[in-house]
Structure formats: C-alpha cells, structure tokens
C-alpha cells in the first residue's frame, strides 16, 4: 500500500438480490483529504460506505482502509475509523458525558483518557457546558455535533460522514463544516456523502455517483470544467411556462430550474439565445434578464449524469 493513500477501492460491487446497488466502483482517497461522494438518494453512496466500514460485505471487488483489507481486517479498520451516519445514533437516554464515556470505553480508551478527550472534543463542538444533559433532549443541530464529537473521540485517522448534516439548519451546517475543515487541517482524512451541492463545493475532491456507478471524479473545479455545454441563465416572468417552451427548442442539452431562474445547457450558445428570445416572445413571456454563467457544480452534476445515462 502506498503511504499517502487512506482509502483505495477497486471494482467494488454490491448486489442485493437482482439489484446492483454499487457497480464496479474504483477510487482513491489521499491522506488528509476531504473527499466527497455526490449523488442522488439511492445512488449507492451509503452502500459503498458500509462496505468500507465493515457493515456490509462486498459482493466482489476489493479495497483497503487505513491500509487494512476491507474483507479480512474489518476489526482493525473499526479501531481506526470514526463513523457518523445519517440517522442520529447516540443513546437519547444517556447524558452527553455518559454517551462519550460509553463510546470511548468500547474503543479501548482508559477512563482518564476518556475524560481528557471528552473535554477536547466537547470544546471543539461547543458542548462543554451541556455534559450533564440528556442527549435526547438536545436540539437536532447539537445532537449532530455531539455525534461528531463521539465519532472523533478515539482520534481516528479516518472519518466517514454519511449524510451527516441531513435535516440540520443551514447555520448549524456551516458550523459543522468549520469543524470538518479544522480536522482535515490536523491531517484527518474525511469521506463525506452528501446530496447538498454547496457541501460538495467544500470538498477537496469528489466522485459523482449515479445508479451505482462512478460517473466522474475530480476537484469541484475540474468537474465544472468538464461540462462541454455552455450555461445560459434565463430569468423569465412565468417560470413554469417558460420551462415548457424552452424544453421544446432544438439544441438544448438540459434545462432546469435554478433558484428563481432557469439554467439552460447548450452546445450552441449563440443560436440558443436567439431561439430563446423568439420562442418566449411568441408566448408573451417577458425575460427579465439573460446571460451566460460559468457552470455550477449542480450543472456539472446534471450534465454528467445525463450524459452517463445516454451512453
């Protein structure tokens, strides 16, 4: 194994009955990297993660996490891994401190070490003053922070965050990501699955996953640059009607709602712009503004998945 690779995966496949949840995925994650798994719900992100942390056995393929084999050395991997799942999974009927002392204990930390580390992680996530509170009574945002604290208590060099911020308000998510950055700076490798595009932007590198297959890999910038189409941002006054009209135009690769306007992907930007004005004008749809924009990660994601779907 190469020393700078935290995770190496080759041809990983998981089949449930007749359903191929993960279909021959290969990728590598470098040490200290924030690595993102981006894809819609049901794309196979969680299944992949569960094969890496020992919850599921791969149908075929191989891989290593922290240098240990994911099939034969699951027990070793577990000791080196922090895992935070999309469901809140600490004990609601234990206090904050009791949860930490349980999880610290089962990872083999001594009582003194648990105490010391608890102080550290709680101050990192800002829960130092709530140690005696019942976990179940904390607001969701704080629960997620506690779950993060618990996942890093045993100082794992690798951290898996499986949709860790789902259902959390934007401000809490922002704070949460600050903590993730902080850990990555300290050399922790972080594997994140998400379907939030803004979170994907925070990642050093990303893979796009759709229907169990890896369809693109790269930095957010590379992925955006890989979009062959140009993106025209249109702000019409009747959004839904405009979308109907635009979808019928020739040379449109993809048209989708984006905020209060539409993003139209096309290979022939000049012709399309003219065609747009004409078609919308014919339907008495006013255009408040129109212009070319650099593709966002969402544009890249849509463009790349559509292309993967066609081929």
């Amino acid at each position, binding site marked *: 194994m190469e020393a700078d690779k935290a995770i190496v995966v080759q041809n990983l496949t998981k089949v449930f009955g007749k359903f191929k949840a993960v279909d021959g995925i290969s990728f590598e994650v470098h040490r200290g990297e924030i690595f993102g798994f981006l894809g819609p719900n049901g794309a196979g992100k969680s299944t992949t993660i569960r094969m890496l942390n020992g919850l599921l056995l791969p149908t075929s393929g191989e891989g290593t996490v922290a240098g240990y084999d994911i099939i034969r050395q699951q027990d070793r991997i*577990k000791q080196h*891994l922090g895992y935070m*799942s999309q469901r809140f*999974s600490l004990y609601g009927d234990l206090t904050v401190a009791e949860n930490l002392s349980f*999880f610290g*204990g*089962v990872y083999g930390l001594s009582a003194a070490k648990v105490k010391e580390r608890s102080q550290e992680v709680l101050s990192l996530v800002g829960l130092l003053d709530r140690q005696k509170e019942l976990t179940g009574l904390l607001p969701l945002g704080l629960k997620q922070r506690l779950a993060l604290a618990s996942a890093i208590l045993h100082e794992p060099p690798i951290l898996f965050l499986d949709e860790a911020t789902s259902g959390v308000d934007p401000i809490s998510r922002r704070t949460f990501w600050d903590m993730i950055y902080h850990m990555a700076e300290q050399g922790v490798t972080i594997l994140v699955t998400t379907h939030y595009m803004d979170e994907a932007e925070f990642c050093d590198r990303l893979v796009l996953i759709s229907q169990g297959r890896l369809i693109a890999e790269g930095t957010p910038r590379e992925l955006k640059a890989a979009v062959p189409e140009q993106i025209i941002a249109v702000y019409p006054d009747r959004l839904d009607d405009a979308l109907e009209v635009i979808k019928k135009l020739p040379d449109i690769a993809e048209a989708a709602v984006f905020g209060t306007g539409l993003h139209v992907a096309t290979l022939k930007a000049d012709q399309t712009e003219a065609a747009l004005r004409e078609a919308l004008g014919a339907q008495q749809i006013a255009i408040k503004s129109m212009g070319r924009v650099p593709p966002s990660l969402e544009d890249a994601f849509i463009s790349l998945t559509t292309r993967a779907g066609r081929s």
Partner: protein
Amino acid sequence: MFRRIYHILIKEFIQVWRDKKLRFFLIVPPLVQILAYGYAINFDIKHVATAIFDEDRTEDTRDLIYRFRSNQYFKVKHYIESERHLRDLIDHSEVTLVVRIPWDFSKNLRWGDPTKVQIILDSSDSNAAMVVSRYVNTILTDYTQEMFKQRLWRFGLRGELAAPVDMEVRAWFNPNLMSRWTYVPGVIAMVVMLVSLMLTALAVVREREIGTMEQILVTPIRPMEFLLGKTIPFVIISFGEVVMVTLVALLWFEVPFRGSFLTLFVGTLAFLFNSVGVGLLISTASSTQQQAMMAGSFFLTPAIMLSGLVFPINNMPPFFQYLTYLNPLRYFIIVVQDTFLKGVGLKVLWPQMAAMFGLGTTMLILSALRFKRRLA
C-alpha cells in the same frame, strides 16, 4: 474484551435505571401476578351451585338431600319442580350440578331393589366437572353403605359393616392439598421467564429500532461481547426478581421452603440461559419492538400451557408430551416446586438442571450464530 463488556453493562444498567416505566414494570406487575395467582388459581372447588329435583319426597330422600346440604362442597340453591325448570337452570348456568331422585327411589329402596340417582353435570368446564363428580361419588358411596347397614339390621344381622379394602391417603409435602403451595412456586418460574425473556428481546431490538445498532456495529465490539453485555444485566435483574417474588411466597403466602437456596440459584441460572437465549433469538428475528412483543407472547403462552403447571403432562397426547421435553419451563417448574415443597437438592434434580443447561446453551449458540450473520 472484558473492558468492552463492562462498558456495555454500565450503559444497560443506566438505561434500565433511568427508564421510569421499566422500573415500574420490573416491580409492580410481578408482585401483582404472584398475589393474583396466589389467590385466584385455586383448584379446590367448594360451594358448587346445586339443584335438587326430588320426585319422591320421602324421609329417605330428605336424608340423602341433607347430606348434600350439610357440607361445604355443595350449595343447594334450587329445588326443582319440573323438567323444564331443570333445563332452564342449566342453560343459564345457575347451577353446575343437579341431583335427580326418581319417584320410585324410596319404594325400591324399601323393597330391596336397585335404585338410581341421576346426576346431571354442567361439564362445560370439564376439569371442574370431574372434581364435582368425585365429590358426589363420595357422598353417594357413604349413603349406600349406610343403607346396606340398615338393610342388614333389618335382616337381623347385627354388627359393623366394614369394607374389605379401605384407602388410606397420606398427602406428602402438601398434607392439606393446598393448590396455593403448588402454584405459587410455579408462578415464580413464570415471572422470571417473562421478565428475562422480554427484557432481553426488547433491549436488543430497541437498539436496532432507534438506530444505535449501526453505531455499535462499527465499533470494535465483537458480536459475542455485545451479546454478553446485553444479557448479563438482565440475568442479574432476573435474580432480583426471583428474590422479590420468593420473599412474597415465603412471607405472605407462607409456602414452606424446604430445600436450599443454592439449588434454587443454580436452577434459576440454568433456566435463565434458556429464557435469555430465546429472548436473543427473538431479537435477531424482529426489527421492531412490537414484533418482538408478539413473538414473545407466541412463545410464552404455549410454554406456560405445556409446562405441566396448569395441565398435567401425563394427560397430553404423546406428541405433546414429547414436545414438553423441549420446554425449559417444564424443568424449571419441577426444580422450583421440588425445592420449595420436597426439599430435594441437586442429587435428585440434576436431570432437570442438565436439560436446562443443555437446551439453554443450544439456544444461546443458535442466537449467536444468527446474530453473526447479520453483521456480514
């Protein structure tokens, strides 16, 4: 390994202790059960509602009726006048027993001809009907002997008439044949099974239901450690339950305890292997607490019915008799009853103990195997 089990134990005890409802369920229902069953389960039938249909109305019949009226087992509630009246009383469950004395009873008796008394029993509760018919039989036998004697007198033969063979019953261990002495120890066994089985099943399933199981599975905790950590607390709590209900049996119901507490301890331990094992097995097959509760009741009811506590095993069809050998409660009830009433120890009860250890170990291994598979 022991450190990890220790941390699971601590966690389980905190959780049980913090759960107010669970604390309540551990103490109140077992006490209510043993008190209720101690008073309610009673196969000593008394005050049987009785009707007399006397078609003869003579001195002889009055004498016979008096025998029914003058003891505590029968309560003569009605004197019937007609056939229809009889049917009515039975249909409305007003009486369990009708004694019908025919019009020629006295005449036949005087002439020395055989005569009959008709006994009509409401046998919708067949066990009770059996007991009542035995009582009636005793009264009629006494009466017949009396008549014999009188007849002999009339023929001029003096002296006592003794039956050639007389039965001399000595009821060992329970001289007054008190149902309570038999049932209260049985209830102890039932309560222990209920508590240990349900607690174990629910504790594991709850983790799956609230999602903490997934977190547990990514920690270095091994399946065996998890299973031990999940069962040891409930074994300890179940021992607490045994002490609690045993104290009620001894101090409140004054059931004698003639054996040793060590025997009871070993027997309980052997039995807990089983109930905890079944609890785990149920937990591996259920994904919600409701499912576990259902599965638990499906196991508990037949286990109690086929334990020999309520219905004698010897009365069951052969297939079910063999089936009871797989029922751990069957052995445990014998152990508890015999420790209380007979005072026998391991020297006598070892086959039961061995059976329970054997079955229990099998059960634990089975559930451990099933549990492992879920990890993969």
